[in-house]
């Protein structure tokens, strides 16, 4: 894996912050809309200490985890099942093609209708959205397992269940992991969105609320916190990916979104 430190990039980032700081302080009134980074970081510290940030972050994280786990289990299982049986797939394919083009946030109103405005709604919406990339990539991966590999299992007299778990799923795993990675980002987007549309906690709500109460520097700080959260989740994923998929070298992974 890349151990290269992006010195130039970091330097550019630092320079950008300095420029931002200078411009923001230099022009009167601008500081209200675009506070200098120093004030932003100060605010970040403040909302951290006051406990507000952690309170909302934990709500978001809990919803994210619940929805992602649910989607992963359901979508991988369904993907493996439908990918392995051509009959099952033929039943399900038109339904998939029908629902697929509809943007997932469109399910928010219907989810509110059925589940109210609590956590269940947000988790349901997020899980629904996450299911798609995982399901489609898993389907693709399972169906795309090389014929030679399947024939190899057959010539060794390997039974259908062993073939599924010891050959097909490992062979499809790079593609499955791609689906899991894509839906990580989707999960965060949908959780945040559902918190903005209707909620009283969570980072999405928090950021919007800060904007509404004109606590602008805090708003930027919360946004930064959300970006950091997204970054850390991604890094965690990559780390686990590095351990589990060490055997899979830098080959190409098809992305299905």
């Amino acid at each position: 894996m890349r151990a290269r430190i992006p010195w130039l990039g970091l330097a550019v980032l630092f320079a950008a912050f300095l420029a931002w700081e200078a411009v923001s302080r230099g022009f009167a009134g601008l500081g209200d809309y675009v506070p200098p980074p120093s004030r932003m970081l100060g605010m970040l510290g403040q909302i951290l200490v006051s406990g507000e940030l952690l309170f909302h972050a934990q709500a978001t994280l809990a919803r994210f985890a619940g929805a992602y786990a649910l989607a992963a289990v359901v979508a991988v299982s369904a993907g493996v099942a439908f990918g392995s049986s051509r009959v099952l797939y033929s039943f399900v394919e038109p339904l998939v093609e029908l629902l697929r083009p509809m943007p997932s946030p469109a399910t928010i109103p219907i989810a509110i209708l059925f589940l109210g405005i609590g956590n269940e709604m947000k988790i349901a919406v997020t899980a629904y959205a996450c299911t798609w990339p995982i399901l489609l990539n898993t389907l693709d991966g399972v169906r795309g397992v090389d014929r030679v590999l399947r024939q190899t299992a057959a010539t060794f007299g390997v039974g259908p269940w062993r073939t599924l778990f010891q050959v097909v799923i490992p062979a499809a795993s790079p593609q499955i992991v791609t689906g899991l990675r894509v839906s990580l980002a989707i999960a965060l987007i949908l959780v945040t969105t559902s918190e903005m549309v209707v909620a009283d906690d969570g980072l999405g709500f928090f950021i919007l609320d800060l904007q509404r109460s004109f606590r602008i520097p805090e708003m930027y700080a919360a946004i930064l916190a959300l970006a950091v959260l997204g970054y850390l989740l991604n890094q965690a994923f990559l780390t686990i990916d590095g351990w589990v998929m060490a055997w899979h070298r830098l080959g190409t992974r098809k992305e299905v979104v």
Partner: protein
Amino acid sequence: MLEVQDLHKAFQPLSGGAPILALGDVSFRVDAGRFIAIVGPSGCGKSTLLLCVAGLMRPTTGTILLGGQPVTGPPENLILVFQEYNQSLMAWRTVLRNVRFGLEGRGRPRVEIDAEARRAIELVGLTGFERHYPWELSGGMQQRVAIARALARRPAVLLMDEPFGSLDALTRNELEDTLLAVWAEVGATILFVTHDIEEAIYLADRVYVLSGRPSRVLEEVEVALPRPRHQLKTREDSRFIAYRHQIYELISRETSRRGPALP
């Protein structure tokens, strides 16, 4: 040991139209412990033949008898080694675990399985590479792993579908000799398909020459060359050259008669 009787195989093209007859009455017989090669023009259905014998494809008509028993599915004591070693090996398993694959799930103790696997790895000359992953190995080494994996099962019959076709000439020669050494040690019956006439003569006791599609056995050539074979001496032997002429003429007559075979 192995008997193929009146094998026919027809394929229905997906785009519709008349069925394509790949194999049209192929019959031959192989005695136990012999090394048999099969050559033929491109696209004549050599791979199809092997897949049928391996029980991985059902022939349209005809019978395949292994030890007197008809083949209806992959037989227990017969293993097929594929040309595409890269797609046949399991990228997520080390060499050792790949070789162990065929022995797993049958109730044998782990210690025994490992011992068998290591023995097979030694046979193909890959001792020391047990913990490597396939992608870390060259093409020739990967194919050795695939062969070791088959050998670990101690099959009575080994089918090989152009196993050295994707390798460069030098590696090919190396593996030919490795295979002959393994065969001498293990004594299995080998059915070896290749497009390389010289390779067929070099390796085999007998060469079957197939016609173009629909394939049938054109000629049965007994290879009376001394063993052990030698890359230079055997290939310079006047009998080797005679066999080569004979088979080459047969095949080029086939090719010119039918025109280039379509995929």
